[in-house]
Every structure is written in C-alpha cells, then in structure tokens.
C-alpha cells in the first residue's frame, strides 16, 4: 500500500495517461489499464465468482471506459472512476443473469507460499474458507467489503464507486462482516447462537458453497 504521497503521484500519472488518451494517444489507455488491471480483475472475479463472466465484465467495462474517457470530470481519482465502471458492469451482469455466486479457486503463485508446507496448507485452507464465505454474501455487502476491507479503499471512495452514501457503505461492510463472522465460526460460541436461515437472507454456518465452481 502506498502512502498518500504515492497515491497522489499515481493519480497524477493516471490523469496524464487519461488526458493523453483523450488527446489521441493510441497507447495511453493501454498503459493505464496495465497499472490497474490486476486489482480490477480481483474485484470483478470476486464479485461475479465466475472467471469467464469476470473476464467479459472487465473487458466490457474497460472498453466502455476507453470510449467514455472524455467524460471523466476529474472529481474522483482515476482508479475510483475505473472501479466504478467495473463494479457497475459486474452488477449489471448479476442483475441480468442472476448469476449464482461461485467460488473462484485462487490461483496462487508458488513463490508466495510459505516454506513450511503445513503452513501453506493451513493458509490455503483459511483463504479458501474466507473466499467461500465472501462468495456467499449478498452481492452489495460483498462488493463493499472487497473495496473497503480487502482492497483498502477509504469508505468515502467506496461510496463514490458504489454511488451510495458513506453510511450505506459502512452498514454494508458491518453487516457483511457480521455474516462472515458467522460463516467463519467466530460467533459459534455465543450463548444464543443459532443457524441463520436462508429465509432471513442469511447464511447458516457451514452452508457456504465449497470451492470448485466454475473458476
């Protein structure tokens, strides 16, 4: 994570690239995409839970951004603008296709694995549990948590991405965390613990889909 100075420099760079693109530079937008594509991919994949859908959504979104770049008013960071377009593309797909979330299998780079294979296995299992629990959240809560808790966007920035008030982002994050706490077993021992039923829009502990979907 870069500091505020680094983020400002990154945004300067992004604005220069976008201006160059709008001015006719045929390659500036590609360079801009290169800077952000990994994070945007992570958001799209975790939002949609399906690799093919996420790839289509990401491409649709970035081509849309390419064509509408002249409309960027500069009020938000370029990365916020890109996130918003990608998130909207994903939500459109969710609404249109009513896609059931599936759990992507994280494609880990072996170089990042810890030396001890037991640690690696435990970490991977934990990561899969978290990914599965995330995938089971209502999509609005899932995206809010992805933006704020996983990718570290300030609440205000996430609110711009999602087009909702900051309080709504806070609420979605908090509710999502509460559901994750249930799914991950952190509330298992509470005195009046009980499975949360699908009828109330919640997921019972252990009911999260297992990895191995279409990812």
């Amino acid at each position, binding site marked *: 994570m870069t500091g505020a100075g680094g983020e400002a420099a990154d945004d300067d760079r992004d604005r220069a690239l976008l201006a160059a693109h709008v001015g006719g530079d045929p390659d500036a937008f590609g360079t801009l995409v290169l800077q952000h594509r990994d994070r945007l991919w992570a958001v799209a994949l975790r939002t949609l839970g399906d690799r093919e859908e996420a790839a289509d959504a990401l491409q649709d979104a970035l081509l849309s951004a390419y064509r509408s770049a002249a409309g960027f008013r500069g009020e938000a960071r370029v990365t916020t603008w890109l996130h918003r377009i990608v998130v909207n593309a994903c939500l459109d797909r969710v609404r249109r296709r009513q896609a059931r979330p599936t759990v992507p299998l994280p494609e880990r780079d072996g170089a990042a694995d810890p030396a001890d294979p037991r640690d690696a296995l435990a970490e991977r299992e934990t990561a899969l549990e978290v990914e599965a629990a995330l995938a089971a959240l209502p999509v609005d809560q899932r995206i809010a948590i992805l933006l704020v808790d996983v990718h570290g966007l300030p609440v205000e920035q996430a609110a711009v991405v999602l087009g909702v008030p900051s309080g709504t982002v806070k609420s979605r994050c908090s509710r999502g965390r509460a559901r994750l706490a249930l799914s991950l077993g952190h509330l298992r021992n509470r*005195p009046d613990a009980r499975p949360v039923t699908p009828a109330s829009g919640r997921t019972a502990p252990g009911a999260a889909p297992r990895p191995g979907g279409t990812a």
Partner: protein
Amino acid sequence: MTEPQPPGPDGHLDPDGHLESNGHLDLDGLADHLAGEVDAGLHLTTCGGCTARLAELEAAEHLVLAALRSIDDPPLPAAVADPLMAAVAAEPPLVEPTATSPAAPAPVPASRGATVVALEERRGRRAWMPAAAAGVVLAAGGLLGYAVVSGSQDGDSSESATAGRVGDAPAAEARGAFPTLASGLDYADPTALTAALPSVLDGSARQDSAQDQPLADAQLPGSPLPDTQLPATPQPAGSVPAGDPSALTAPAADPLARLRDPVALADCLAVVLDPADPSQQPLALDYATYRGQPALAVVLPDPDPARLSVFVVGPACSRADDDLQFFTRVTRP
C-alpha cells in the same frame, strides 16, 4: 437486502426495525450499531443478551478483518490479460493525431518531471505480446555480452559521472557500454526518477545495500567475460565492475537474481527492445524497485531524441510473461 432505515430525529437510524419477535436486536441491527448507523444504546442498556452478543460481534469483527486482509488477490491470468489488452489496443484512438493535435500525452504537473506515456509506442502495436522473432532474441543475447561486463568500462567514466550529462549516452551506445547498477530508486516516484536519471545513465547512481549487487550470478558457463572487456579503471559508485568477483555473490533470497542471469535477462530484454532495431541496446539497467517491490528498470533510447524510454519489469520478466510494471518516457536530463 434491507438497507438502513431513514435516520430518526437524532440523526441515527431507528433500531426498532431490527428487533426480532423475541425483543432482541437482529444481526443487522447489531452490525449497524457497530457501524454507527443505528443507535441501539437505549435498548442495550436494558438488554444483557444483546449487550453480550454485541461484544462478541465486536471481537469477531477484528478476526474477520484480519482474515480478509490476509487473502491474496487472484492473479490475472494471461488467458484473460492478453485478450483484454488486445481488445484495448484494437480500439481506434479517440482523436486521430494531427499536426495540430499531436498524440503527445499531457504532461504531469510541473513538479513531477517524468511524463508518462504509451507503453507500446516503442514496440509498435503488437497488442502487448512478447516479441517472438528469433532475431530479437539473438540481438538481445548478443548485447548481453556487453550487459554483463560493461559497467562503465572506459577510463573516462568517472568524468562522465561528474559531468552527469545524458548527452553522453549516445557515445556509450556506440561503444556498446551502459551502466548496470542498483540505485535503490523506486521508479513509481516520478520526481525521484527525474532527479536520479542522470546518475542512472552515467552509472554514478549509488547502491543502497550490499544485497542489491547487480550482475550477481551473471557469469554463467557459456558467457565468458573476455579479458578485453573487463573494466580497467575504478568504477563509479553504484556501478558494479563485472570482473569483480565480489559482485558475483548474491543473496539467495534476492528476487531479481534471476534477471542477473544473462540468458534470463536476454529473454526479458527481448520484450522491451524494439524488434525493428536489432542494434538497439539499453542505456542503463537498474536493479531497483517499483512501488517497493524489486524491479528491473531498463532505460532505452526513445524515438524522440529529446526523450528516453523507461521500462520497469518485475522479477518474472520473460518473453512468456513480460511482468511489465510501468512504462514512462522522460525528457533527457
């Protein structure tokens, strides 16, 4: 999903909407209270059960946050990235460049000296694919005969460092010599890049740690260093003499060690060198960082003589995966 209710007269949301039939707050109500979006304080003062659940939820939230922050982003696979970049590259420019509206990018603010522009400008529009022509590989491999030994091999390198003029670079190109160093520079910082570029080009950039020894492990079987190319004079600070055995010992954990191997380096440089110009070679290689992560910066001549191209690649750089982190064009200092 039920969104928070409209705020009450006190500015907080009404907790009554979250009361279950048993008179306790439901999970959303507790979560909204934790988020400060519902004031359930009055209820909590009279309900021990809800107070206990809230405390447990608050403690669990820390565990959940830690778990969320520990998961890695899924990497963007090439099967997704390549078509994506190709689709972007295939789009027509928004405005066709003309004599009166050149495609030159808008400059960043004056306080930052580097101008960020198109990555593919130097490579043509090859849709971000790695170079495949064998000639490119041969050219890159050939120049590495210089890359691994060059440093600044001529006796006047210290004078060049003192002068600090990028105008010396063409002469270095002609000699097949270019600095290979570990400046410690973070290429994500355009201001620092602009400030450091002269010393990167003339080889006087300083090494910031012994772990950043460039060219380590570079002298592999099959790539002997001709005696005639060993440096005969003291090298400028930050420029590692290729013939110095001490420079050939790298810590095993060095993420950039792979790119100090001549074959791997040639494979990587084939990605950034212009395939249409087999004689092209870097003006400087800098084993540095990008956004705090180890990265190799390759400084190349630019089609615009007044500028330089700077490619920054990650440790995995190869023709199979360019691992390109950043590209910028900068005004020759």
